[in-house]
């Protein structure tokens, strides 16, 4: 045997050597194949998510068609009728109200970080905003439920219903967990996103624009509001839309503070429901196929909405980036 092996070995050695040599020679092709595969994986994943959601909601789509989007009845227990309107409405109301609160503040922060803050303050202040964005959603929920609602939302709701209660949106009774609570927590959560993107937009505007405005005698605010804001408008809009995208899909914090109530009510002080929170609450309880598929369809609506918003926002931000020549950036 040993003789046999030793006799065979030169051949085998040259064979393994040639395999190694082949691999060595074709290593680059192999490597490039891997790289292309990895690059393909990312867009493929997006397509796969869309496909799986589409496929997984077939029963529900066939049963309810477009009416799914405007039926206000979600009745898994008795009639097995599913309409997502309460969730769509809840998501839109809370997200838009959140933007209403967050946009003036976070654009102000963006301006402060890019234009006003002394250089030594910019990095630490920007870092604090990053930390705010890094706090996990579930901790916002915990804090919102036990601290923010009793300390801020409830007194605010009582004041609103006492003084503006004649408006249907502020009609009482006052609940702690409510759409107002969800909107305010969302506002806190999306403001770092909007602030960071709008800071980047302002920083990308050429210095010459500022100098020209100041040379014409503009005050700093006039320079910002009449020159920088119009210049970066589409980028700022993109930042706001990305913030909206984050608000729409936010799950844990909203689920914990919105009260999860299906009644359609105009009042912001009333508990509500959102698309993300109904998935979180009911997905593991869906006991039959149609129920589960209806929830998947809610996910599909959420996915399609964020996808469209994202495309829109990216086009806007890319538009700004393309218009500003690389060399003249600050």
């Amino acid at each position: 045997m040993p003789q046999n092996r030793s006799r065979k070995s030169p051949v085998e050695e040259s064979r393994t050597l040639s395999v190694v040599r082949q691999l060595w020679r074709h290593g680059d092709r192999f490597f490039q194949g891997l790289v292309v595969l990895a690059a393909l994986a990312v867009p493929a994943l997006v397509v796969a998510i869309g496909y799986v959601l589409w496929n997984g909601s077939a029963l529900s789509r066939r049963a309810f068609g477009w009416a799914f989007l405007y039926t206000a009845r979600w009745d898994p227990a008795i009639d097995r009728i599913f309409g997502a309107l309460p969730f769509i409405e809840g998501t839109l109301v809370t997200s838009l109200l959140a933007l209403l609160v967050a946009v003036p503040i976070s654009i102000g922060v963006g301006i402060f970080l890019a234009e006003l803050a002394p250089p030594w303050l910019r990095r630490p202040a920007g870092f604090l905003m990053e930390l705010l964005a890094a706090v996990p959603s579930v901790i916002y929920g915990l804090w919102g439920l036990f601290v923010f609602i009793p300390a801020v939302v409830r007194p605010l709701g009582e004041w609103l219903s006492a003084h503006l209660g004649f408006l249907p949106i502020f009609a009482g009774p006052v609940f702690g967990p409510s759409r107002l609570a969800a909107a305010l927590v969302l506002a806190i959560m999306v403001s770092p996103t909007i602030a960071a993107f709008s800071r980047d937009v302002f920083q990308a505007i050429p210095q010459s624009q500022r100098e020209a405005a100041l040379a014409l005698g503009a005050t700093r605010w006039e320079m910002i509001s009449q020159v920088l804001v119009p210049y970066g408008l589409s980028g700022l809009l993109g930042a706001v839309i990305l913030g909206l995208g984050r608000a729409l899909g936010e799950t844990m914090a909203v689920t914990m503070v919105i009260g999860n109530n299906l009644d359609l009510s105009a009042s912001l002080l009333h508990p509500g429901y959102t698309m993300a929170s109904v998935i979180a609450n009911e997905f593991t309880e869906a006991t039959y196929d149609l129920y589960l598929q209806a929830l998947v369809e809610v996910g599909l609506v959420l996915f399609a909405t964020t996808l469209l918003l994202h495309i829109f926002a990216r086009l806007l931000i890319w538009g700004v980036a393309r218009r500003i020549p690389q060399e003249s950036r600050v």
Partner: protein
Amino acid sequence: MDRRHSRSRSLWRKGVNALMLIWCGLAMVVAIIPLLWILGHVFLMGLPALSWSFFTALPTPVGVPGGGIANALVGSAITVGVGLVLATPVGVLAAYYAAAHPNRPLGLALRFGTDVLSGVPSIVMGIFVYTLIVLPQRHFSALAGGVVLAFIMLPTIVRSTEEMLRLVPPTLREASAALGAPEWRTFLAVVLPAAGNGVLTGLLLAVARAAGEAAPMLFTAFGNPFMSTALDRPIATLPHTIFVYTISPYADWQAKAWATALVLIGLVLSLNVASRILSWWRAHRLGSVTS
């Protein structure tokens, strides 16, 4: 325009200017308040409940004193670890493509896909993985949790790695090619080490984000009150534990929610600070090399 009019006009303009600049400064303060408030409260409420045994003990039933989050710590480590192992090679290689061929159709598709993926709500990712893994297997598993986290980490890893790879001077790559090294050796032995520290920064941020995700865990990893290290069994995670304890009606569990939140927030923020220090250190070192 007479002089008086122009003076009042200029006063008005200065007033508006001062007011709006003050608004921007105030906005910064207003935006920071929630951070300090959350941190302060989590610290105050969580610290009294923290003890050594909180880290090493398993959860106890309601009313039984003691108990900890050992299972959730292990579970978070396992799911995040699985996610990291799955996402890192794909993310780094994809970033290599994006940095090398930004304008090819696939490069554009990749960048766009990365952007979209980072905007997909994590709960939707949860549904996706539920259909992909949990449904065929007919049970929740740590593996499913890890796969969701991999998808959540992927865009962060691609984006930060791409940025770092772009910063590697092309001369390094050319020198390596001139020595006869094939592309894959250049990548492994020259490009990756040169960008290594920056790549690590991105990985830390991705881990920090994934470690705080509770929503997709609801129907992938599902949670488990017992210690489990098996990939094909349900597993507890830190954020999911916080959620369960928070919505429970028991004061004892709610106190534990705060303590768990303190552990999680400490973990996430220190990862963020670490990545910041790393990137600062990197910039510092590179600066001293080039100057």
